[in-house]
């Protein structure tokens, strides 16, 4: 019997039992759909995080004290404010060095109180990071030098404290000390789940006094071009170890952060896909089960076909095609539902979902393979039935 004929016979058998065929496919549909959706969400999360890191600005090097691996516990800072000027002199471009020391503090206006991240920074933040000002202006070098009590508000903080009122020139109280609002940031969204619109920037010198510390948390340096990043990183480390021979510092570039995050999120996507793949496997077991039932039910039909001249191979191929058709059609429907759900998730939920080209292809291939793998046992059993035994069963 030709393969095309076997195909037609198999389609006929599946159509004769539409509801059962559909229910059998359901396991595969859910499995493939889940793989496609979860991989889409994983890939989407990865792209979004990458966009966030890149959204900070370009060619930035972060200098922090101690030896950092991503995710390790922070060490006590040994960086001082004077190191900012020192590094600026070493690289010959003082305007490209920004710094931060931050702490969470209560901020109030009248009786309204919010809890906010207070970042002590210098005037170079707009040079290094992408941080546009909506109204007013950013901190100046004079503000830092003279420890002025002035503040630039994130858009969300500004909304909560002042609503529709004009914040510029108004007073806010941070940890009991009064500050004057001189600027409001444009809305920038969040990085790693932390909303940067909730921040308030004040001069780093003022912040050290307010927090009662003399350290700074980190220094950020902007390289002129992507090719300058790596030499500049080495130069910064060399300069620091020259000044502090016994201390250890780390300089991390954006691409290093991206690489580490990419690995973590890639692994996460893989785990999600693996969980979904298990449901695909369970769907395959379901197909196998139903095919075994079907072989038993159609024993007489098999016997008749054999009596009329079907060889073992003809029967095996027929049932194998049925199994593969079930999982393949299930795979296609699952793929469509998966892609559809991912697009819906993208449009109507905050979950970012990006369809990686390989995930539907993989899910489809696997569903075909599942059909072959789980169809072989029932199909072989059908092929092996003796015609006499099969015909006798009523």
């Amino acid at each position: 019997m030709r393969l095309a004929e076997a195909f037609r016979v198999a389609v006929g058998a599946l159509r004769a039992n539409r509801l059962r065929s559909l229910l059998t496919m359901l396991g595969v549909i859910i499995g493939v759909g889940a793989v496609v959706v979860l991989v889409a969400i994983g890939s989407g999360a990865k792209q979004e995080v990458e966009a966030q890191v890149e959204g900070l600005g370009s060619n930035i090097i972060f200098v922090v004290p101690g030896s950092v691996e991503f995710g390790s516990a922070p060490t006590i800072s040994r960086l001082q404010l004077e190191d900012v000027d020192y590094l600026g002199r070493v690289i010959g471009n003082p305007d490209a060095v920004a710094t931060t020391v931050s702490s969470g503090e209560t901020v109030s206006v009248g009786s309204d109180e919010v809890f906010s991240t207070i970042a002590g920074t210098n005037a170079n933040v707009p040079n290094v990071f992408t941080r546009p000002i909506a109204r007013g202006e950013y901190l100046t070098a004079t503000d830092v030098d003279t420890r002025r009590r002035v503040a630039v508000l994130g858009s969300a903080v500004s909304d909560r404290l002042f609503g529709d009122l004009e914040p510029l020139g108004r007073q806010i109280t941070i940890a009991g000390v009064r500050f004057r609002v001189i600027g409001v940031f444009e809305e920038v969204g969040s990085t790693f789940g932390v909303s940067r619109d909730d921040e308030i920037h004040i001069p780093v010198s003022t912040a050290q006094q307010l927090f009662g510390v003399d350290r700074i948390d980190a220094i950020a340096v902007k390289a002129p071009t992507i090719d300058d990043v790596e030499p500049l990183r080495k130069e910064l480390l060399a300069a620091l170890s020259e000044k502090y021979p016994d201390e250890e510092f780390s300089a991390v570039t954006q691409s290093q952060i991206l690489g580490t995050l990419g690995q973590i999120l890639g692994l996460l996507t893989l785990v999600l896909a693996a969980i979904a793949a298990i449901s695909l496997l369970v769907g395959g077991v379901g197909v196998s089960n139903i095919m075994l039932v079907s072989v038993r039910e159609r024993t007489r039909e098999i016997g008749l076909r054999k009596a009329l001249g079907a060889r073992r191979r003809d029967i095996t191929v027929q049932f194998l095609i049925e199994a593969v058709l079930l999982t393949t059609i299930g795979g296609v429907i699952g793929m469509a539902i998966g892609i559809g759900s991912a697009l819906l998730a993208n449009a109507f939920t905050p979950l970012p979902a990006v369809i990686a080209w390989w995930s539907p292809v993989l899910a489809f291939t696997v569903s075909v393979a599942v059909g072959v793998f789980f169809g072989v046992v029932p199909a072989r059993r059908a092929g092996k039935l003796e015609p006499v035994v099969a015909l006798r069963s009523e």
Partner: protein
Amino acid sequence: MTTPAIEAVDVTRVYSLGGTEVQALRGVSLRVAPGEYAAIIGPSGSGKSTLMHLLGLLDRPSSGVITVGGRDATSLSDSELAVLRNQTIGFVFQSFQLLSRTAAIDNVALPLLYRGIGKTERRERAAAALDAVGLGDRKGHKATELSGGEQQRVAIARALVGEPQLLLADEPTGNLDTRTGGEVMETLERLNRDSGVAVVLVTHDRDIALRTQRQIYVRDGLIERDEPSAMAQ
């Protein structure tokens, strides 16, 4: 002497049922000539069904030889046996054995499917076979939409569509009333006369058996008597 359509030489068939051996056939020799019309008759448990399965190449003898058209069937593989069965033997079963959700014409064409014949030719030949059994107007009907007598005639058309040398009919009227049973018998006899296919009926019904040219009486796994019918003489 012409080559017989089918010949069994001293065949036995032993089943083992739950550890005990049951001798269904204990040494049977039988020769059916081309175009012959014969009946194998015997009570249930006599071994006549086993004999039919062996003659139909659906089963293998425990010992002895079966030849079809002069060819030794006992030495063939399962696949070769399936091909030989497809080309030389047609079956009619008591319970019709049609695919119920399938149109009459496609039921009839089934043996040709396994012979690798293309769809167009299959349909032409199946249509001709249905015309031959007087069901030319029922081609598109599904098996479940036909009466018992019509179903059995579809089965006869299916048995003949591949132009076999031998048609084996196992209690072909067993599920039919006397009148439709008679019509089915007439159809079988006409085809035997017109197309020259050898027909072997397996039955426990003496009246049916006596319509044939030769009665082969089977009892306790042996051929008890094998004689030409009085009418045919």
